């Protein structure tokens, strides 16, 4: 479709069947969104007869001069308050093609409406008032656009007439905003100085802004592409319902990606039951179709009567979605009522609908500044964005959002309403090699003994305690003592010691930064395996680099293994004075190269789960803190309380 539009720029007018580009216009309140839209309609001659007269009357009734914004703000309240409450969609045409314009409200209160409008857009115009510059919503909206996956963005710097058409002002806004957008991975196609009110740089370049060498708004819009589903993706047939109107058993759903052919093998996840497509049903079809493609709502029958239900995702046997009860996601929250840890809600992913809860909030960002909020977050408030781990009551079939969008995102429903949405950051595929360099033919062996069963057997869950700190800070001493105490308490534990590992698993590694990273990665993977087996793993490694430790955290959390970074903290002087193995002396003389703290850096943890200052407190006290922490970490969580409550109230 888009190709046809490009090859014949006039085709839209003669062929109203061509697809429309959907543009959302966002930005801070009063930066001129509705005015820009009114102007676009007016200047492209897209207004119905009498509309201008109607707007003039409405403007006079409110005691204002001619107000373009009234075109869209047709609701009574909006005219009185002069703000856009809800998202509005209107079609308009240029010489080149047709558009649907989505006007999204700029007020923070109406963020849910902005998301509603923007989620369906192909492209976005971010409006910024040249005078006011970047405001709260300018940032928040940009961040949401990035989460919603909108990549084609034009920044319009509006109200240039109010700043005397000065290029310096425009350049200042451009450089400020570019710096912010870069952090989000957004690269705007253009920055365009405009005056929506006066119609400058809207349909064509205006002499007042002759220093601007780029396109006017309309030209920029005409150069944008309509989003098309990426080709060559594996089939995702999302099952909506099973119909039995007659003797046939019909599976109704939509092909979100890929294609579906009569005769092909199809497997339904998360259960993994398979059959072949017997027919594609179509009412009133001259000849029954044999193939259906991405985007189609279809009804099919299967050769074999397997049990499938709404929510199942059909795919090819060798390229199915990921499945599991845990999801790592980035979440935006739109609802007044906050979203706390461990309180049940419904997750809706494609047509799946499953009870779930947050088991971890990794971090919460203030979406207007993109700064992480201080402290350890236990709740997500309205208009915040967070990285979270979600655990569902039943397995879900899903994809990583950057792999397949439609099955890589979800909404959260609390009570009766959608409260927020999220995109899935991580997913493990059976068909995807897990480690770099792994053989493509490797598959995962999945045991019937689940982590829950293992935890039940041990009476605690496996976990990784990662002790990091300078040589001589006390890691090994604490690790050995902790291991003993845990054992006496009936908790199965094991020590992974950096030096020990270097005798075997890591004997081929040296002390260069690359080798140190690989050393830590191997230790991390080993710790994860042992924790998966059910043990509390006490890792004692200097592990000087933050990135390496974060990597281990990821390795563990990816598989739902509780991970805690324990900072064994003692000043370098103290460690050097202790020098239990005489290593500092050798480092000072140069006998040992790249020794952490002396000739190689140590990056202390920023937010360790636990910090132990071994030079300030006695060993028994420090050990007691560590012991207490380890017991808590390995305790089987009791979300069941919340779940029971939920069941009792019939949610």
């Amino acid at each position, binding site marked *: *479709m888009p190709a046809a539009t490009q090859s014949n720029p006039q085709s839209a007018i003669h062929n*109203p*069947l*061509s*697809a*429309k580009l959907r543009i959302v216009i966002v930005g801070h309140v009063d930066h001129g969104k509705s005015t820009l839209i009114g102007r676009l309609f007016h200047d492209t001659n897209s*207004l*119905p007869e*009498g509309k201008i007269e109607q707007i003039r*009357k*409405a403007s006079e*009734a409110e005691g204002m001069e001619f107000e373009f914004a009234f*075109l*869209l703000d*047709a*609701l*009574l*309240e909006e005219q009185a308050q002069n703000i856009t*409450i*809800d*998202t*509005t*969609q*209107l*079609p308009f045409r240029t010489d080149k093609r047709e558009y*649907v314009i989505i006007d999204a409200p700029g007020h923070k209160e109406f963020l*849910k*409406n902005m998301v*509603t409008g923007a989620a*369906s857009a192909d492209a976005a115009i971010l409006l910024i008032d040249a005078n006011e510059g970047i405001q709260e919503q300018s940032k928040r909206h940009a961040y949401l656009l990035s989460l*919603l996956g909108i990549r084609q963005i034009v920044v319009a710097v509006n109200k240039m007439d109010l700043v005397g058409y000065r290029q310096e002002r425009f350049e200042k806004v451009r450089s400020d905003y570019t710096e912010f957008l870069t952090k989000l991975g957004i690269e705007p196609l253009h920055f365009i100085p405009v005056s929506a009110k006066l119609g400058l740089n809207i349909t064509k370049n205006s002499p007042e802004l002759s220093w601007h060498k780029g396109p006017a708004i309309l030209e920029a819009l005409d150069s944008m592409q309509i989003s098309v589903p990426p080709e060559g993706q594996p089939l995702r047939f999302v099952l*909506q*319902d099973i*119909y039995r*109107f*007659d003797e046939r058993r*019909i599976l*109704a*759903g*939509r092909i979100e990606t890929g294609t579906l052919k009569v005769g092909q093998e199809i497997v339904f996840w998360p259960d993994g039951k398979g059959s072949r497509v017997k027919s594609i*049903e*179509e*009412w*009133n079809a001259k000849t029954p179709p044999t193939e259906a*493609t*991405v*985007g*189609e*709502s279809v009804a099919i029958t299967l050769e074999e009567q397997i049990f499938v239900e*709404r929510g199942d995702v059909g795919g090819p046997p060798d390229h199915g979605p990921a499945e599991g009860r845990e999801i790592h996601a980035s979440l935006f929250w739109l609802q007044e009522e906050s979203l706390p840890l461990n309180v049940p809600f419904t997750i*809706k992913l494609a*047509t799946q609908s499953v009870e779930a809860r947050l088991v971890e909030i990794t971090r919460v960002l203030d979406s207007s500044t993109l700064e992480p909020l201080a402290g350890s977050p236990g709740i997500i408030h309205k208009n915040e964005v967070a990285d979270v781990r979600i655990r569902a009551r039943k397995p879900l079939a899903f994809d990583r959002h950057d792999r397949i969008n439609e099955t890589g*995102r*979800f*909404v959260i*429903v609390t009570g*009766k*309403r*959608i409260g927020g*949405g999220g995109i899935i950051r991580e997913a493990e595929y059976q068909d995807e090699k897990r480690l770099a360099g792994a053989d493509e033919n490797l598959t995962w062996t999945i045991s019937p003994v689940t982590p829950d069963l293992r935890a039940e057997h041990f009476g605690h869950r496996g976990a990784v305690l990662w002790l990091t700190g300078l040589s001589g800070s006390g890691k090994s001493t604490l690790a050995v003592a902790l291991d003993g105490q845990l054992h006496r308490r009936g908790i199965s534990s094991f020590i992974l010691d950096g030096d020990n590992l270097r005798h075997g698993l890591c004997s081929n590694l040296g002390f260069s930064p690359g080798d140190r990273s690989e050393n830590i990665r191997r230790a991390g993977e080993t710790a994860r395996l042992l924790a998966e087996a059910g043990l509390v793993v006490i890792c004692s490694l200097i592990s000087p680099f933050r990135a390496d430790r974060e990597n281990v955290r990821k390795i563990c959390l990816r598989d739902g293994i509780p991970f805690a970074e324990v900072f064994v903290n003692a000043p370098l002087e103290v460690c050097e004075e202790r020098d239990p193995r005489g290593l500092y002396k050798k480092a000072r003389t140069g006998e040992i190269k790249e020794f952490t703290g002396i000739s190689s850096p140590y990056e202390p943890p920023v937010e360790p789960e636990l910090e132990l200052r071994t030079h300030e407190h006695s060993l028994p006290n420090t050990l007691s803190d560590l012991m207490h922490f380890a017991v808590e970490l390995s305790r089987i969580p009791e979300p069941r309380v919340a779940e029971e409550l939920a069941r009792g109230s019939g949610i």
Partner: protein
Amino acid sequence: MDHLDQLEAQSIYLMREAYHSFSNLCMPWSMGKDSNVLIWLSKKAFCGKIPYPVLHIDTTYEFPEMLEFRDWALKEYDLDLIVKINEDARSGRGAYTASVGYETHDPVTVTHELKTVALQQVMAERKFDALITGIRRDEDPTRAKERYFSPRNADFEWDYKDQPPEFWNQFTTAQEPGEHIRVQPLLDWTEVDIWRYIEREEIPIPQMYFARPDEDGKFYRFRSLGCWPITKPVESKASNIPEIIAELMITKTSERAGRAQDHHERNAMQKLRAKGFM
């Protein structure tokens, strides 16, 4: 897939979601062009069987041709048809002290009583929890702000100031007590899309949409159909679908210009809709 295929696929998806989500669904049917597209899409969505009743709110001011069409379509599509008249309002019984009609009342009042109140009555009688409606965003600015799944409270009021979010094809499917949901599968369609689809699929529609000569020697056609006392035809020579589309591509008159109740006072449509009108 071309543009119409995409619109069709999305509408079918929405109707199937509605059928899954609600236990007692109903589809109002005015016999107009959009309504007939809904019938057609329902047939496609459910493999030829429409699994919910269709509802005609009969104001008693229906064009005779429309009623003829209704009787024809009833058989053609094998519809489970409900016809509802607000009898109390027409005959001045019950809560009404006098008969309500265009002869005595303004169009906004009549539309409210004979359409919206009639709908409320049948909703209460039949306990429908959701309605599939044929409104489109391009018809009217207030409709432009609609959701695919839009809740209405027990008094049929539309809280357009606090609508639930709706994105990524996830909809409001749970109701607060007394609420019903309006499911609006044609929101994204434009008037031209509707005509192209009717043309492509050869969907039967009432002949009043096509131009016919009047006594004054000029040609007129109906662009939108409602009650006969308040629905005026537009001057037009478009006597087939390609001509209608050609006309729409250049017209600057709005679709509902011939519908008197919309223009009775400023924001009339918004007031009607806030009280439950579709």
